[in-house]
């Protein structure tokens, strides 16, 4: 986070007003729309900023986009329509939640896949381990007749020595 701030510092060199958190006033007649506005503004990325959503960014373009979202919400557009409009203009880059499509299959399904793989590996490890130990145990307990005789003899001599 130090570095994020350092980076922000570099943006600062270019424009000095960027830093102040974007606090604007957007009025809605309907609290439900205000909630949707906040959610959309949080999940869309400001196309020209370092790594900020349009809710937090104070760049001109983010302001424009906030106003645009507000207008579209007031015009009773659905969230879908608003997002589609943004993607059409600025590409997939504006989506903080990338769409599920062939290029992002690995991104979306990868974690689940790794998890399943990991658990399978655990099962395999435990199984093979148990097998080896069973074998060792069996080998230990099943001495051949001659071996057990030899063992007895050894034990006996040991005892006699004492």
């Amino acid at each position, binding site marked *: 986070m130090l570095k994020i701030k350092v980076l922000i510092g570099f943006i600062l060199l270019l424009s000095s007003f960027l830093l102040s958190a974007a*606090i604007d006033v957007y009025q809605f007649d309907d609290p439900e729309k205000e909630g949707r506005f906040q959610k959309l503004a949080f999940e869309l990325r400001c196309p020209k900023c370092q790594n900020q959503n349009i809710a937090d960014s104070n760049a001109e373009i983010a302001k424009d986009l906030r106003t645009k979202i507000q207008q579209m919400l007031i015009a009773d557009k659905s969230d879908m329509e608003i997002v589609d409009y943004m993607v059409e203009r600025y590409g997939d880059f504006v989506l903080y939640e990338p769409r599920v499509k062939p290029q992002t299959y690995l991104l979306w399904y990868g974690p689940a896949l790794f998890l399943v793989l990991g658990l399978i590996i655990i099962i395999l490890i*435990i199984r093979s381990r148990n097998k080896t130990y069973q074998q060792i145990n069996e080998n230990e307990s099943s001495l051949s007749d001659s071996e057990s005789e030899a063992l007895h003899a050894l034990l006996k001599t040991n005892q006699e020595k004492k």
Partner: protein
Amino acid sequence: MIPEIGEFALIIALFLSAVLALVPMYGAATVNELWMSYAKPLAKGQFLFMLISFICLGYAFSQDDFSVIYVAQHSNSQMPIQFKLSAIWGGHEGSLLLWAFILSGWTLAVSLFSRSLPLDMLARVLSVMGIIATGFISFLLVTSSPFLRYLPSFPEDGADLNPLLQDFGLIVHPPMLYMGYVGFSVAFSFAIAALLSGRLDTAWARWSRSWTNIAWAFLGLGITLGSWWAYYELGWGGWWFWDPVENASLMPWLVGTALVHSLAATEKRGVFKSWTLLLAIFAFSLSLLGTFLVRSGVLTSVHAFASDPERGFFILMLLAITMGGSLTLYAFKAPNVKSESNFSWLSREVLLLVNNVFLTVMAVTVLLGTLYPLLIDALGAGKISVGPPYFNAVFVPIMGTMAVAMGISVAVRWRETSTKVVIDKLWLPAAISILCGLIFPFFYGSGFDFRVFIGISVSLWVISTVITEFIGKFRNAQSFSIKLKQLPFSYYGMMLAHIGVAVTAIGITLVSTYSEERDIRMAKGDSVELAGYQFIFQGTHVVKGPNYVADQATIEVLESGTFVVTLHPEKRRYNVKRNMMTEADIDAGLFRDLYVALGEPLNNGEAWAVRVHYKPYVRWLWLGGILMALGGLLTVADKRYRQSKAEPEDAYV
């Protein structure tokens, strides 16, 4: 003169670390005791010269020596002294110097506190740290020296430090974080030394474990501090942004957490040895990767102001050598490492493996999400962003499932536990947690909420299983106080850390569900109601700081008519660069924060845009982080480690 001494000390430190990298290592390979015994004095010498170098830079900052480029770029004569000094690590060159300085500090610590370590092991560990130091100090000298001068003419005053960084957060956050990052180099060096010597026994795990736990605790504290800092300083009220820079610190922490657990199994039971080694290698490699991602600017190339290809390339080479070298060594040597004992399906070993799989998958997910945009871009498939909605969607289910396993793991013994015993122990905590989780949203919120139900149940599950198990320990004990003392510190450390996870989870659940915020226009006398609190705007006045001028608002907060607090958020303009800064004011509390930030003046200053937040349980996030770190540190205070250190068997040394 002083900066030149600093540069010169850095050069001497480079030579010492190069010698440290070669001589003791060669001595260990040829069983030459004299050569091995050079390790300690070299470690001390290296630290001494890094210290001199560091002090020289600090001196240049404190004396406002603006002929030094780095000082001129990151300081200003008006800045208060504490920020002048912490500006040492306010930029690239200084952060790297801090990195290398802390590395020499860890090297010194290993050489001082490892009296029970066999000489050849110590020699190898210190040598590996010497190799890393050689890489980083040459990086500093070749591409990023903080001691370069503006000659012959230099600016009269400095360009000032970014106002965001002129804060208490800068003083504590980076050193903590770096202590963690760099601390993993010790775990890494121990792993490499083990691979080289083939010695990987309980004693090795014990040595390695205390160092790893300390590093892990520092990293956790660093991340926690960073989150807290971002929360109060950025003025957005957010506490985690899934920004690449944050992810860079989260990845080593996740792998480090896995390592801490895996090491426990290796120490206690002699299992998962090769896996432990691999985790140690990856924890440090991810620390380096983080440094690379942040310093090279590849991830922020949208506007590539900060990137410097030469520096990025250098770190990438360091990373390639570290990972390539260590993994090659691992590939050759690890197959010889054999684990020693057996365990059944329901045993702590298996649950630790499950824990490791979850943590590793989480780390891989963060890596995937962080690098995916680069990957897609490199393949020419367009530009995409991966942000908070993705990480939340993937992380929350994995974390939830892992928390369930956490609860089971404390009730399960090493080797083998019967299913009946586990069920007997766990049914009550399970019932209580689910019940409380069901009821909670009705009492606290307005009605049932599935996320809150899951979050609260799972957190209470983690806490209640730990407590049940703790109480169970006293069932057959004769005396409460004797048993209390008998339990090892590492057990208390585990309890504390696990409760910390639950506390953080409760914080995350509640603050992300029940937070309220409003952006509104306020003129003098206006008031706004939020979550039962009334915020009354009483106008602004101008205040002067040491190097800024601010509009300070006065906002009185009432709760059902009774006075709660007066908040003074500020809008600052810093004198040098004319930056505007929002300085939020917060009324912090254990169960809720009231957070007010000033936006832009509207209608020529008659009114202001104001953002008010109500943040329930947000403190719990950081409280949990602190508990986890304390837990990690407590483990190190365990008798076992103290004994092993106090043992007088220093025959080699």
